[in-house]
């Protein structure tokens, strides 16, 4: 069954024809065309589909599209400023905190939610913030270093 849904993504209001069974992830990728948000496990374990909903990280695969109207949703596409990468993205590049890159959009948004509320996180805070984001390429050491560096850069600027 089809339904018309209106929701705000990255500050832009979208009115789209959706399937009533769509998840927020389906809505973002297949109806709006924002494919930066990835589907990994599809059941809330891996965090690759992490987006911000009213400022808090959520797994888009665990949310019905019906729940999106009235919420402020930010995806990875909403972070770059006119094509310039967000400082968290720059830090991940500089520290080699990415390999295949599939988990990276989710990691960036989890890091952003952390730094927005806790500008001076400890290593334990960072590890807790990304506990719900699984990376299968590598260890988490460089990712943690990159987020710590992004926090330092943000405090100094």
């Amino acid at each position, binding site marked *: 069954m089809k339904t018309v849904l209106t929701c705000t993504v990255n500050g832009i209001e979208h009115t789209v024809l959706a399937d009533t069974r769509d998840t927020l992830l389906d809505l973002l990728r297949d109806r709006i065309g924002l494919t930066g948000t990835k589907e990994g496990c599809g059941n809330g374990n891996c965090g690759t589909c992490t987006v911000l909903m009213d400022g*808090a990280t959520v797994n888009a*695969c665990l949310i019905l599209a019906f729940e999106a109207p009235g919420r402020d949703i930010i995806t990875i596409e909403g972070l770059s400023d006119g094509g310039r990468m967000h400082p968290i993205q720059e830090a991940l590049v500089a520290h080699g905190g990415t390999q295949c890159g599939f988990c990276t959009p989710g990691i960036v948004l989890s890091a952003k939610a952390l730094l927005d509320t806790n500008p001076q996180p400890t290593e334990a805070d960072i590890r807790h913030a990304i506990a719900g984001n699984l990376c299968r390429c590598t260890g988490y050491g460089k990712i943690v270093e990159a987020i710590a560096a992004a926090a330092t850069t943000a405090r100094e600027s």
Partner: protein
Amino acid sequence: MQAFEYLRPETVEAAVAALNESGARALAGGTDLVPQMREGRRSASRIVDLKHIGELTAITVRPDGSVAIGAAATATAVSRHAAIAATYPAVASSVRLIGGVQVQNRASLGGNICNAAPSADAVPALLAQDARAVIASPQGRRESSLAELLHGPGRTSLSPGELLVSIVLPPHTPRSAAAYLRFTPRREMDIAIAGVAAWIALDARGAIAAARIVLASVAPTAIRAPTAEAKLIGEQPTSALLTEAGRLAAQDARPISDTRGSADYRRTLVSVLTARALADGCAQIQAGAP
């Protein structure tokens, strides 16, 4: 996933009316329900979203000191609530063990209870604090102990048409404290092989006046450890006594062997975690817990 109708009521009464139909399911955080529906393990012809009902998302400190937590309040909201963090730290810390941050931002306290996993991380601390449940139905409201709500893996005692409205933590007992400890191979994003919550109250002489020990992942539901509790009453909380309580709690457990651990391993974990949780509670009281 089958097609469904989506409703967003704004009062408990409207939600109860909407749920009083076969095929209707309540949706709070959706962290269990949505994947269950996508994988065909649960079906629904009507989804009733509870997150727009003020009473179901509110956390209220009552005049008598008790705290009512709306069943759709998120784990994040529960863990960050000042009164819960100050007075019921075992509850605040246990909900921070549910999944990762993304899940905690959505998962509800009522959902963790009603999904009825024997390993549900929110449940042992709530039972140790002697929490009660407020339940609404077309006939009105009733209250029961939270323990009565839990019937088995994936099963509660809620009748069709009944809705869990809130969880009530009773007023704080002076010189009491609780702790919940679980064992997982990984620190985060894992399911407890065994978990133990302990609540303990000391009298003016420092002897144990009352105790509740709750064991998780070692029976079809979280269960009390009555033999271990009885051993403690009237005694000074020496480490020998707490170790003995752990040994008795391991006998009170009814674990199975599965891929996550053998029954013997689970009993050993119960023994160790019980002694540690009791010691944690005593330390909080001695450190001047409220």
